[in-house]
């Protein structure tokens, strides 16, 4: 007992330690729990910002952040490398190559990431929509948030249709498969694809709400009523609903918020899109968002020698289209590279004509804030709609509205040239104006045109540099022409989705 007494302090300490259970709850320091988003003053704003950020961020996928993996980079590459405005100057192990060659596979990383990140944005949008719809709000700022998120949800679904579904105008949209509609954060994890018609209906319904709710103007970095109307115009154009296309384009044009750039201001548009009046909505990149050689959109299209890979160039047909008029200020976005001898530099036998629509914000070759919607598209949407309505004069008027502002005031198109249709004229002008901005392949496919790539480039399987004779056109090769109804015209649903979602049907 005496010993016990002597050691009482040890036993007391022991008892205290034994009795203490201690603190066990730990909250993360750089993350917010999903449940508390609606409870903080800025949770909704932060998530909405996050949805915009996901267009420009390099997001962890398959366990690491691959610099390639950015929504916009994949968006432009999956669109335009499969088209006829950009030529491939080099074979590469980067899956971007499969867009040139149309050798897609379900496991190609760029398409898998694009699918994933699109739905991640939808999840963020759904989070905000669910919170605000449940709370109900009369507050204008909150309504604006709600509208922006409806817009964002519609936008990502529409772009998914572009890559994973055949055109609305091809076959029966009420039976052809669209994409999986994700309009809730709590739905079943396995879900089947909706039809194309259902997907379009969903998008239009979201956009109508977006138009209704958005009544504030936060700058062209953010969505707005006009951005939703512009997307509606684009959506209806793809559905070939000409009247609605014109109606919504007019609402944007008549809003008075925007103006076409002039011949003198146009060359500066893409390097500072956010401060130009033509921009309806652009994704803001700040200097810290510079994705450099490995991740910027520009890095495949332009290089100062070190800034990028500079492996894909303006194609011969596109250059020919612009070269019809050397006054065309759109030529300023093509930068010819010369070697030490003063000749046009070649890469693997292909002439190097860099594309600079994604460069030179703050003078940096890899920095730009890519434009998602701009006013010129509205005129050209109208032009196509009028052309299809058979209203040749209005179609030409719209084309000329653009040409006037691009240094071609003296070269207006006053009649349809012989051998061409009014739709040819419109599509050519759309190409001149909207080149490299993700339009061309969709324009051709929607209008059941063949994608013609009868020029030298590494889209041709098995091509080697000595094969290239720039004084002739390649003949006898596969892959030179891709018909609009070719089964390869769309991408495979990513293998991850097929494995984890038994209801999802492969393309």
């Amino acid at each position, binding site marked *: 007992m005496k010993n016990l007494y002597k050691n009482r302090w040890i036993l007391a300490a022991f008892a205290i330690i034994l009795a203490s259970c201690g603190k*066990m709850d730990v909250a993360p320091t750089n*993350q917010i729990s999903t449940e508390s988003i609606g409870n903080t003053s800025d949770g909704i704003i932060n998530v909405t910002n996050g949805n915009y950020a996901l267009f420009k961020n390099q997001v962890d996928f398959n366990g690491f952040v691959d610099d390639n993996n950015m929504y916009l980079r994949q968006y432009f590459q999956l669109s335009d490398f499969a088209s006829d405005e950009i030529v491939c100057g080099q074979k*590469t*192990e980067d899956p971007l190559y499969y867009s040139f060659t149309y050798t897609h596979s379900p496991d190609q990383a760029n398409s898998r990431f694009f699918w994933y990140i699109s739905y991640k944005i939808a999840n963020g949008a759904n989070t905000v929509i669910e919170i605000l719809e449940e709370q109900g709000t009369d507050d204008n700022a909150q309504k604006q948030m709600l509208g922006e998120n409806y817009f964002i949800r519609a936008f990502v679904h529409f772009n998914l249709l572009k890559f994973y579904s055949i055109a609305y105008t091809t076959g029966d949209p009420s039976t052809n498969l669209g994409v999986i509609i994700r309009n809730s954060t709590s739905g079943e994890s396995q879900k089947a694809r909706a039809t194309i018609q259902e997907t379009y209906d969903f998008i239009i319904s979201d956009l109508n709400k977006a138009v209704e709710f958005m009544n504030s103007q936060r700058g062209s970095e953010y969505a707005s009523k006009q951005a939703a109307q512009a997307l509606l115009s684009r959506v209806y154009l793809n559905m070939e609903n000409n009247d609605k296309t014109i109606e919504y384009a007019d609402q944007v044009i008549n809003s008075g918020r925007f103006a076409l750039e002039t011949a003198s201001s146009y060359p500066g548009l893409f390097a500072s899109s956010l401060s130009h009046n033509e921009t309806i909505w652009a994704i803001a990149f700040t200097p810290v968002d510079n994705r450099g050689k490995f991740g910027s959109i520009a890095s495949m299209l332009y290089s100062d020698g070190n800034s990028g890979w500079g492996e894909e160039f303006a194609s011969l047909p596109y250059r020919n289209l612009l070269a019809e008029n050397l006054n065309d200020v759109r030529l300023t976005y093509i930068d010819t590279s010369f070697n030490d001898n003063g000749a046009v530099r070649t890469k693997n036998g292909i002439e190097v004509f860099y594309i600079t629509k994604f460069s030179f914000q703050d003078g940096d070759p890899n920095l730009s804030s890519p434009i998602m919607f701009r006013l010129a598209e509205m005129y050209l949407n109208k032009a196509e709609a009028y052309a299809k309505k058979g209203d040749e004069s209005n179609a030409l008027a719209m084309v000329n509205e653009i040409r006037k502002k691009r240094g071609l005031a003296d070269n207006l198109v006053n009649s349809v040239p012989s051998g061409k249709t009014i739709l040819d004229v419109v599509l050519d002008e759309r190409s001149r104006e909207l080149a490299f901005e993700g339009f061309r392949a969709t324009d051709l496919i929607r209008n059941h045109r063949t994608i013609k790539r009868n020029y030298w480039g590494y889209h041709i399987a098995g091509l080697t540099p000595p094969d290239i004779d720039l004084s002739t056109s390649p003949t006898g090769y596969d892959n030179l022409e891709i018909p609009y109804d070719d089964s390869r015209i769309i991408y495979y649903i*990513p293998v991850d989705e097929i494995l984890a979602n038994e209801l999802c049907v492969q393309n």
Partner: protein
Amino acid sequence: MKNFLLFLGLVLISTPLFAQVKGVVYDENNNSLPGVTVVVKGSDKGTVTDVDGVFSLDAAADATLVFSFIGYLSQEAAINDRQHIKVYLTPNVINMEEVIVMGYSNKTKTEVSSAVVVLDNKELTDVTTDDIGSMLQGKVSGVQVVTSSGQPGQSSQIRIRGISTIKPGNEEPLYVVDGIIGGTFDPNDVETLTVLKDAGATGMYGARANKGVIVVTTKTGKTGKTQFNFNSSLGYKVADQGNLSMMNGEEFYGMSQELYRDPETHQIDKIKFYKFYPRELESTNYDWVESAFQPATSQKYYLSASRKTEDFSYYASGNYYKDNGTFRNTGYEKLNLRLNTKFQVNKRVSLRNNISINANRATYYDYMSMYYTYLNLPWDNPFDANGNPVFVDGHTDDWWSRDHINPIHTTDNSEYTSRGTSFDYDFVLDVKIFDWLSFSSSNRLSYGSDKSHTFMSPLAGGTYFGKGYINEMQSTWYGAISTNLLKFNHEFGDHSIDGLIGVEADGGYYEFMSLQGTGLPEGFDVPDVASSEQQIGGFNTTEYFRSFISQLNYNFKKKYFLTASFRIDATSNFPPESRKAYLPSVAASWLVSNESFIMDNVSFINLLKVRASYGITGDPDIGASRYMGLFSLSSNYNGQPAALPYQLPNYGLTWEKTNELNFGLDLGLFNRVNFTMDIYKNVTENLIVLVAQPLSQGFEYRWENAGNVTNNGIELGLSAIVVKTPSLSWELGAVFAKNANVLSGIGSSFYTTVGGVSQVYRDGGEIYTFVLPKWLGVDEQTGAPLWEKINEDGTTEPTSKYADATPQEVGNALPDFVGGFNTTLTWKGLSLYANFAYQYGNDIYNSTRRYMDHDGHEPYYNYMKPADDWVLWTKPGDVATHPSQQNAELSRENSSRFLEDGSFMKLRNVSLSYELPKKWANAAKLNAVTISLRADNVYTWTKYWGQDPEVNLQQADWSMPGVSDFKYPNNKQFVFNIDIKF
């Protein structure tokens, strides 16, 4: 009264019954043995022999002395009025009284009822490395060690008894240093290392023991006289490229012509080829690999001092290790200081203070530099006329290699370094309250810090040319753990009982900070000078762990043993409802050889023991907050905070637990042969898994408990002294372990995918099973690649369209069995040792072949030299392994084509050592001098056509087990070592 006591004391001290006894202890070869414990039987009075094997102590003339020393039979000697005693100790192959350190409690070998393996310092440090894993390879049955990188300072991966968890994160066993969970140590300071394999042993570590436990005990003072030990190594090493070598200029010139084979005539169109590829290229030959790798040296200096007296002992050591890398500008250096002290405050109270300080600096490489070193063409010269690396960029017109990057120039103009420090302080208080009850409080404070520095000079080609780049990251870890135990023991008759009960509290705080920027002036590499694109980052996390611990041991007549333990663990990593885990274990053994029917009748059996154990262990290593639905705030849009969908919630997430059942047998024969066998069945339930979600959810996966894995295995260990004479001995050792696993209860299968390579988890399947399109070779008629397409009716057909190929199970990253063997031949002071390690039956996905065996898809990347059995299709009718370059669409996409047999056997280490004769050493006033020559990674036998078949086993969301990417090759090393004791 006081005076009387003093008087009595004087009388007692001066009584003639007590006298000083002196003596010397020798080993079987007549060498004196320092460090032998000498105790007066029946008392706690004792001493240890000094460096000359000499001891002296006071003892009654009729007392008996007990001599004990690790590795020797303990021996008693009656004093019988003698004043000088000579004692010869006999080495004991099976030392039943050897104390095995098992963490919370120590046990003698007699008492152990579980599967444990003990290695001492000598058995570990035959390989010259700083990495404990490399030292273990091939030496312990059931322990698989993979050294997947030759980067100096890189740790190897250790897996005990297969894979019991499939979640990403830490899969390494739990380390327990000096009785306290966690901690740091230098391999040179290790006295013993105990691998705990079954629940009978690991059960005491309960919730963290799922992956096995390695208990490390560092050295303490042993002898009465201060003993110094100096050990130094000098090494020379070269990169071991294994079966990988790249083509030279001439070979690549030949191979490049394949792209110019006419699809119709199947002849090479040489005219066309020469038009683009000048003839002089054929004789142009620059070896990028040889330029980037060079032989390197390593050095180690270790000095320790130790001493033990009755009330104080210490061990102090310093160790400096410097390892230069074989890849340009890589290396590692480390300084370790340790001070272990123990005060015997009085008869009842002792204090132990251990301090371990570590500082290291590593220089790493950039992945892309390794990549280009292998892939750049032999037609480009890395150096200019002055021997300096040449600068190239996208507008360098006279350059063949694809990406216009000179990795050597980049390496010379960039820095990838990290600096680490760690500090551990252990404070252990032992109080003997009664003879039968003691209290022990073990506490550790730890601090660790790592800082990485990444710098690209404005001179380096690439995206930061002209502006430079700097990134620094600092992570800091503060930890505290306190274990407080009451231990008791009691004997009555033939029964002996002991046990412990206590609590443990553990907490850690981790802090991370990063910054980066560009726009650096030339020649400066600190963040201060960055002028643009500055970014900051940082966060912190906290973890808490609480445990209740108890254990009860019982034995009857030292023949029947029973151990039972029970733990309750709680961790902050799980949601409040499922934080606690209840983890019991029980183990029993029967020491048959202590039965009289063996002892009396079968003299050649020294040891026969049968063991059985069962217990439940867990694994909480998932990181904080995995159960919550989260949005990440570490991003911005337009300069404003942005929240990104980060994690799906699962508030039902809970512990995964392993039920471990083990049966073991230990057998010792003729005092020469030791045999151990264990069979086990481990069932891990509620596996924590990142279950893949449809990507259209917007999330790749969700943390879930899904399914079970059962690991069945058998482990064999054998050691034998084949020859034993005073001057010659030959010892052999071998270990073998076979493990098989099967998954169950998973329901719908799920996949992990990294870099397009998938592994499946399904009921009845095995962990780390590759799912890939199955490669069927090359179409004999067309030269096109062929994959297998499985139709809906189950029939199969070959297809040349990759998208139609069916992903299917094609191989597995885990070996069927692993093991090793060693042999030691000793003749007088000369000793020759060799150690082999092997594994068999695993598949490796040779991902690098997608780039260096590219079928012409990358005309400006070099090829690896083909294996003997590779055949390129050149004309119809060819039976080929490689497709026609004219018809190879998607041929290098992921498929079983690149899945190879990863079995290997490796001569891990050969060493020849010589201990100088004692008299020479003594003449130089030294106790012992040993010099040795060693060779590490001498040779590898394997069919694997790549760098090295030791391939990553780490399961993480960025790394897939069994996939080999561009990596830092392992090294062959030749080492001179000298060890001096004085």
